[in-house]
């Protein structure tokens, strides 16, 4: 039933990319996203593609999993592409009935689609190679300077990691309850909307009860271990930048330099 949904999106591994400091990865992905919007011609995208493919190969995550991240935005990408294709004004190259395609439209559409795809692949690669815990750890550290202006960095990160941890638990729970009710002859598939909504009651009631119970138990367990928020809290795993992170930064800077060189040499396409 729900068995196909994997834990978060994380694909465990031990490649260099997996072992990078999460802060490095988060920052680089942010820069990467900005970079996709600064590229002005196709040579630039070729460079970006080469870099991205290289990263995927190094990370040893099967490309299938990276591409799976594209699925949810596929419709969005297609629609954006079509809008850009048909609604951009400029030099008409092809027209039929009320539709006309312009040269600029083709370029805009291509750029938009490329940007979205790279954006998605980049962030997928981040979540595929970084465990949710490491990710929230990294965010907490990056947000730490903002504590001075009153941003509760630790609490936000804690809330996020608990929420992330609860997703697979609740999935499992839903699966278990659905099975137990199906075993008693529950039927979730047939009937009109009203009947189907009613059929959900035997799942939702136990699910809510168990979610509240779990939250309660977790709170008690945390209190029993004297949890009291982020102040003066030391950590088991300190995040440290290493040579790998320097290497990653330099490779990315090289990419940026190449992209700007391409922008300069080959000019703007549109």
């Amino acid at each position: 039933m729900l068995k196909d949904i994997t834990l978060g999106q994380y694909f465990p591994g031990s490649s260099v990319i997996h072992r990078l400091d999460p802060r490095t990865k988060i920052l680089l992905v942010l820069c990467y996203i900005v970079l996709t919007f600064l590229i002005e011609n196709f040579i630039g995208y070729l460079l970006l593609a080469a870099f991205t493919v290289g990263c995927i190969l190094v990370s040893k995550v099967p490309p299938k999993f990276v591409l799976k991240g594209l699925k949810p935005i596929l419709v969005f990408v297609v629609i954006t592409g079509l809008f850009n294709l048909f609604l951009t004004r400029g030099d008409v190259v092809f027209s039929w009935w009320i539709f006309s395609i312009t040269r600029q439209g083709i370029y805009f559409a291509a750029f938009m689609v490329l940007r979205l795809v790279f954006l998605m692949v980049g962030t997928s690669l981040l979540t595929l190679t970084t465990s949710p815990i490491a990710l929230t750890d990294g965010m907490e550290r990056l947000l730490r300077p903002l504590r001075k202006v009153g941003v509760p960095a630790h609490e936000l990160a804690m809330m996020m990691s608990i929420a992330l941890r609860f997703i697979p638990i609740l999935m499992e729970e839903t699966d278990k309850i659905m099975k137990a009710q199906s075993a008693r002859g529950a039927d979730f598939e047939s009937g009109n909307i009203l009947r189907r909504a009613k059929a959900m009651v035997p799942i939702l009631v136990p699910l809510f009860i168990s979610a509240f119970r779990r939250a309660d138990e977790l709170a008690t367990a945390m209190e029993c271990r004297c949890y009291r928020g982020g102040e003066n809290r030391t950590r088991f795993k300190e995040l440290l930048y290493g040579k790998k992170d320097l290497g990653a930064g330099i490779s990315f800077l090289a990419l940026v330099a190449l992209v700007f060189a391409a922008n300069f040499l080959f000019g703007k396409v549109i």
Partner: protein
Amino acid sequence: MIKLEDVSYVYMQGGPFEKTALDHISLEIHKGEFIGLIGHTGSGKSTLIQMLNGLLKPTSGTITVNGKVLGEKSTNLQQLRFEVGLVMQYPEYQLFEETVAKDIAYGPSNMGLPKEEIAERVAYVANMVGLSPELLEKSPFDLSGGQKRRVAIAGVLAMEPKVLILDEPTAGLDPAGRDEILCKIKDMHERMDMTVILVSHSMEDVAKLADRILVMNHGKVEMLDKTAAVFRQGKRLTEIGLNIPQITQVMDGLRENGVNLGEGIYTVEDAYRQLCDLMNLKEQPIC
């Protein structure tokens, strides 16, 4: 009655956490049998029994229940689940209705039975699992853990399935309650010629109740044989993290020390009888 041919099951196939829970299993269970299913934690017992009523579809292989092949279009899964009643492991979480009586009635009313018959069945099974009538109008969430367990078991018994599968139904119950429920199930099995599959970690319970024992080990069938034949292989059972009943160990120990006792004693009752014979005592009924 139930036939598995070369059945495998893989959790999260193709993913990074792929796990083979059942590995090419073939077996046959006949009508009216009482099967004890034992195996170490994670050996695939729960996975196996969830396939028998179509909750899990085999990754490969075919399952036939009552002549119907699972997974074929012509097989109505809902109908199958009324015939193959399954009490899941820790079934307390399945309770959701306002009152205990309504919750027990959920299965039978899904079957479309008339109201009077449902009420009759509810009263009957509630009595059977030891729920007193005044509990029937309480909310299931106000009950103790053991009472909730009984309600959950009653909810499946009320469907009067032809095959009853119980996944560790007595884990966490007190000894008296455990014996009571198991006794009633044995009773129902004999009276209605019901096929029963009982998953348990208690060798004593299995020895006392089962006709045949199915031993699972790392997703494979290790043994499927008469109770005596299985418990004769004590060494192998210990190797795979199981054991023989304690009373058998005691009797074997006595025999090794020269006491004149027969082999193959698996229940306290048998042991008592043999010891009485040995000491020329008159047998007095225990329990």
